[in-house]
């Protein structure tokens, strides 16, 4: 399985799509997490993402290893943004390609669920009412 891991200020869906493209693979599933303009009804101005980058990349590699062990996925890209992100901007992209589509959904959902549970990245929410959480 080919793996692209990235934690950078700017990430794009396109670079994930480009990486997972393969004429041998019929199915691609891409999850994109974007900054929402509200959290539980409160307007959000921006988020700030901080990462313990080296460990985060190491935890992402563990997820990739788990995916490779469980499913016949050909390519996997996991990208996470850091720094200030405005509503509508991309925070995370997980993309997989495989010969068949069912496992692509399973692997992609597993990867994003696990990323959110284990990868050392934190967000601060800057609400429009001035509070920061």
């Amino acid at each position, binding site marked *: 399985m080919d793996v692209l891991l990235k934690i950078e200020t700017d990430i794009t869906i396109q670079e994930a799509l480009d990486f997972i493209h393969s004429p041998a693979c019929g199915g691609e599933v891409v999850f994109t*997490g974007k900054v929402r303009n509200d959290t539980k009804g409160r307007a959000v101005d921006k988020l700030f993402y901080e990462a*313990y980058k080296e460990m985060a990349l*190491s935890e992402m590699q563990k997820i990739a290893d788990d995916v490779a062990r469980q499913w016949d996925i050909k390519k996997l890209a996991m990208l996470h943004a850091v720094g200030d992100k405005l509503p509508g901007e991309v*925070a995370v992209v997980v993309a997989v390609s495989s010969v068949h589509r069912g496992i692509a959904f399973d692997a992609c959902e597993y990867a994003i669920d696990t990323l959110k549970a284990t990868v050392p990245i*934190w967000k601060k929410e800057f609400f429009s009412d001035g509070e920061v959480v």
Partner: protein
Amino acid sequence: MNVMLFGVAKDIAGTARMQLPEGITTAGELKAWLLATYPALQQLKSLMIAVNKAYAADGQAVGATDEIAVIPPVSGG
């Protein structure tokens, strides 16, 4: 200054880095020391210690040459 603090743990302790306290020899001891020294940390859903970029069990040894991180609940994605 080999202990790094992240996220809300950094905010609560008021610092991003500190020296491993004297007499602390395991990850569990460090966690107990942090919870006693900064009681607001007790309100977090979890507090993990990472040693050399991997999550550490309570019994794992820690020393002055290790890269240690204090990890509050993660919230990426």
